[in-house]
């Protein structure tokens, strides 16, 4: 068993929401494992449960059934504060709407996760943020504020922010959804490069087949279940 190579293990993961009297099953019995350095795409129409799965993978939410372990740590039983620690140390998020702090420089946005990292001096944080920004090709734009950057540049800041804590897992939720196709392609290229050169595990949540095409493995969700899995 090459368990050390598996960073995510899902066993019969389910998520139900209580809506008044009835229960809504957003996710049912999802089992899977993801290896280090893998690029995975989660696909499905809206309402298929892909956002729910992403929230659970990103430790923003907890499954109501089954087990989820990240880097060998059972995270489905952790408390809110412990989940925050896991997000801070192991997970990077890239969102469709960038989710950068307004009127704040690229550098400060990139530093944000390190602000909440324990025992880290501000000079080290600055160094790491500058490094992350150079990885996404934003040298010279560090002190531009969010509103002075184009959409593509903003998404690159978001990628830099997700990289700054050396995460085990980079989660991208429709990362090209708000970008034109050319800019979107540039962003996709960054993901490919990070995956190949830095061996970063990337999970893309998308309904765009062109984006999903870059992933080595594609999981299709429907009504909260995995209905199909494809490999390149």
């Amino acid at each position, binding site marked *: 068993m090459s368990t050390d190579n598996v960073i995510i293990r899902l066993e019969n993961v389910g998520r139900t929401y209580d809506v008044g009297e009835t229960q809504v099953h957003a996710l049912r019995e999802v089992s899977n494992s993801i290896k280090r350095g893998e690029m995975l795409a989660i696909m499905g129409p809206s309402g298929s449960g892909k956002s729910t799965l992403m929230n659970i993978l990103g430790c*923003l939410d907890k499954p109501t059934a089954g087990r989820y372990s990240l880097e060998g740590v059972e995270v489905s039983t952790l408390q*809110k504060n412990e989940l925050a620690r896991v997000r801070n*140390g192991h997970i990077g998020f890239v969102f469709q709407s960038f989710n950068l702090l307004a009127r704040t420089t690229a550098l400060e946005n990139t530093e944000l996760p390190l*602000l*909440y990292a324990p025992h880290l001096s501000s000079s080290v944080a600055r160094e790491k943020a500058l490094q992350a920004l150079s990885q996404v090709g934003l040298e010279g734009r560090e002190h531009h504020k969010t509103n002075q950057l184009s959409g593509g540049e903003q998404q690159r800041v978001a990628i830099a922010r997700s990289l700054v804590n050396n995460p085990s897992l980079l989660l991208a939720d429709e990362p090209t959804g708000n970008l034109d196709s050319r800019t979107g392609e540039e962003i996709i290229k960054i993901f490919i490069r990070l995956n190949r050169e830095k061996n970063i595990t990337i999970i893309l949540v998308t309904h765009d087949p062109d984006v999903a095409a870059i992933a080595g493995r594609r999981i299709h969700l429907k009504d909260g279940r995995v209905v199909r899995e494809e490999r390149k």
Partner: protein
Amino acid sequence: MNIWRTSKISLRALSRNKMRSFLTALGIIIGVAAVIAMISIGNGARSAVEERFNAMGSNLLFVRAGSREFRGVHSGSGSFTNLKAEDAQAILEQCDAVKYVSPSVSSRGQVVYGNKNWNTSIQGVGESYPMIRNWEVTEGVFFDESHVRSAAKVCVLGSAVKTNLFELEDPIGQVIRVDKMPFRVLGVLKSMGESGGFFNRDDMIAVPYTTVQKRLRGIDYINSIDVSAVSADKTTEAQRQIEEVMRVRHRIAPGAADDFSVGNMADISQGAQEATGILTNLLGGIALVSLIVGGIGIMNIMLVSVTERIREIGIRMSVGAREKDILLQFLTEAVTLSVMGGLIGIALGVGASRLLSKVGGWTTLVSPGSVLLAFVFAASVGIVFGFYPARKASKLDPIEALRYE
């Protein structure tokens, strides 16, 4: 996340909405300034009262003839005529806690100089009276023991009488008529200012008490004895000694009521200070209420701020901010507002009390205690009223917060 970083984040957030931050802090600024200014007015009144009493002599005691009872009917205080100048002499000789004594007999009369005349109070006192009452003679001299012994027709003028009779003329050596008798002016007293507005302490003339007794009123008793103790903390001791001497001299049997009464200035002064203390507390209390209102203003704005920044909170949580971090961030913002407001309020409050004393002529006294009280209260208001919004922010669900438009 440490306090220093949190403060930096808070300061930046506050500086984004400068006008709003200022208006929010204004509630605290006014509250703190009001507390400091009000307490300074109260303390000023207190110290003014204290100063006036000190000017009269803080170690001052007085012996008055008691109330006379005749077949169950009490006459007013001082109606006994058995207080004598010899009692004063005995007190001076037998009480070691006593430094000066002066018999005192008062009268009123018309004083005339040239074509001017003036009705004033005539105070018959001993030669040591200026030492007891802290009187200062600005021109000429006070009368001495020989004048008292010979019941000389000499007088010292209160500054108001001097102004009314002599205007700018030099009164020393001049002769004025008091009840048609000629009196030589020996000196003029320094103005003592009005005391409480009821009577003018400068509107009087001082003459030897023997002169009042023999030449003006034809009596052998005195109205009261003014005594000064050797020091302020010896007044109680002096009072006890005086009572002892007086009871022996007046042959009062053990258990019988005194035919005299001994009072001291410290008691009166303390009463007056207690009254102004109540005033200070009242003013300060009203001002503190305005600080609480300022705190509600902070809470209001912080609630708005949290709602506006739900997305930001979601972002921070997604990158690993814990509940504690968010709580601390918003609490620090509220406290920063109140502390800044507190500091500006201190400056404004001190400035206002300076202005009141300069322009308004009020005595104000800014005490470090009131500054500390106002500041600590302002900071606590920030913590108390900032806590609810900050807690609300920290309890947000990151997923919903990220989705919030």
